[in-house]
């Protein structure tokens, strides 16, 4: 009978104190806004596109900075990707894109199966699974040879594990497998394993610094390929997110920037680039 007495004593001064603690126990509060958008720089972030929202992506990487003044520090050349992501549910995102890099078409599915939360359900991290497929449509350099269509296909599987540690800091790690049906030389593996690390530090409500590093496990690539390292800013202005960054990767699709990065940071082999994300609410949620 003790439980009857305790709340009675408490209800004298503060009416709501009766309900306060119970409410906290009953609600599960999901952590939101771990990243400004669903990409860190090249990598997928742990964020999904909200249900019913279309996110139009325009990404550019200019040429290498070490092209010097003659190439206007890379601005004479550009590699780009045009894409669109759509949130089918708050957990499931699909997307497609087309890159200038090897005239590649790509598509992805991303499902968030754990959501960081507190309250009734205490979940320490967010976890998502990403699966991408890409088709290289560039003409074969050697058309006389027998070229198979399957040789144009690339697949990436990634587990994204991340946590928003504080309002400022979010970190994530993504074990990754890139599968290539065809590789250039025998020195290279068809299956490339990598660990991708990414994080962001929020400076103000509209500005954040992002960084990512992709460690490709040794003895899988031919000499000359580098690990991808990128650092940049997220700038948010209303419906747009502008991501400005420096990266040694040229491609913006997984099988490009993970095993095929050639730029060397120490040598000025760095691209200036940007991603622009513009969201459109296609399906509006219904209210009573």
């Amino acid at each position, binding site marked *: 009978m003790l*439980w*009857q007495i*305790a*709340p*009675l004593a408490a*209800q004298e001064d503060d*009416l*709501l104190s*009766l*309900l*306060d*603690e*119970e*409410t*906290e*126990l*009953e*609600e599960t*509060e999901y952590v*939101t*806004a771990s990243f400004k958008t669903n990409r860190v720089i090249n990598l997928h972030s742990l964020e999904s596109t*909200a*249900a*019913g*929202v279309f996110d139009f992506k325009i990404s550019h990487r200019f040429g290498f900075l070490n092209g010097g003044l003659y190439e206007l520090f890379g601005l004479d050349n550009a590699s780009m990707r045009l894409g669109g992501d759509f*949130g089918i549910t708050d957990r499931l995102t699909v997307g497609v894109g087309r890159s200038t890099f090897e005239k590649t078409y790509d598509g992805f599915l991303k499902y968030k199966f*754990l959501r960081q939360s*507190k309250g009734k*359900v*205490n*979940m*320490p991290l967010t976890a998502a699974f990403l699966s991408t497929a890409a088709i290289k449509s560039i003409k074969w350099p050697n058309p006389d040879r027998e070229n198979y269509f399957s040789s144009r296909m690339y697949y990436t599987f990634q587990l994204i594990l991340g946590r928003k540690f504080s*309002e400022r800091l979010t970190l994530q790690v993504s074990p990754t497998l890139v599968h290539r049906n065809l590789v250039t030389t025998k020195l290279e593996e068809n299956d490339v394993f990598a660990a991708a690390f990414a994080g962001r530090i929020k400076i103000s*409500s*509209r500005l954040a610094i992002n960084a990512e590093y992709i460690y490709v496990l040794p003895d899988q690539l031919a000499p000359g390929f580098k690990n991808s390292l990128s650092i940049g800013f997220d700038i948010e*202005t*209303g*419906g747009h997110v502008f991501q400005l960054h420096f990266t040694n990767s040229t491609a913006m699709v997984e099988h490009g920037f993970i095993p095929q990065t050639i730029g060397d940071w120490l040598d000025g082999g760095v691209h200036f680039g940007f991603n622009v994300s513009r*969201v459109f*609410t296609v399906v*509006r*949620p219904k*209210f*009573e």
Partner: protein
Amino acid sequence: MKRVIVVLSLAFALLGANQASAQKFFTREGKISFFSETPVENIEAHNQKATSVLETSTGQMEFAVLVKGFQFEKALMQEHFNENYLESTKFPKAIFKGTIQEIAKVDFEKDGTYPVVVKGDMTIHGVTKPVTANGQITVKNGAISANSTFNLAPEDFDIKIPAVVRDNIAKSVKVVVKADFQPYTSSGSSKDRAVGDRPIFLFLKTLPHEKPYTIAPVFALANCPFSGPGRRSPFAPG
């Protein structure tokens, strides 16, 4: 037969107790909406989970709502609302504590609609301001509901709106509140008693709340249907 009588008399006893102490009313499903209308765009947001308590003898009234619980038409708007304007991580709740003026004029025993004036303090975004609002108390078949519409200025609550979107957000935002109350009974005798009134929850309340993060719930949940000998996790190999 004996059992039926016991049950019945118990039920009546509880009912009687219920009525005698039915001066406090509460809800966890109060509806709070707000509307910002400008020539540029209209913004609205809805929250169906406001908690409210009403003490009918004194007219004391309190509302509390989780800022994160407001649903917007556009997900990005909702994110901006929480991240940039209301800073809901820093200030998770909006709270109103006030008193219905001249509560004696409201006859809670008699069906009818009673216009009332509520005065009190509104706390939003960590800023507390006095607020006076007109509203109505409706009594119908013993059930009490309340509604009110009033205006608030974001500026009063130190909510900073950058110049670029100054024209998109109204200087005065219309707030609509609706609550259907039910009697609050601490013994939980009411049929509609809330989950939180169950003894187990009241017991849980006595436990420390700041639990460290643990992955246990998932595994516990996942284990549930399979909890055979050894309680093997489905994630375990083999």
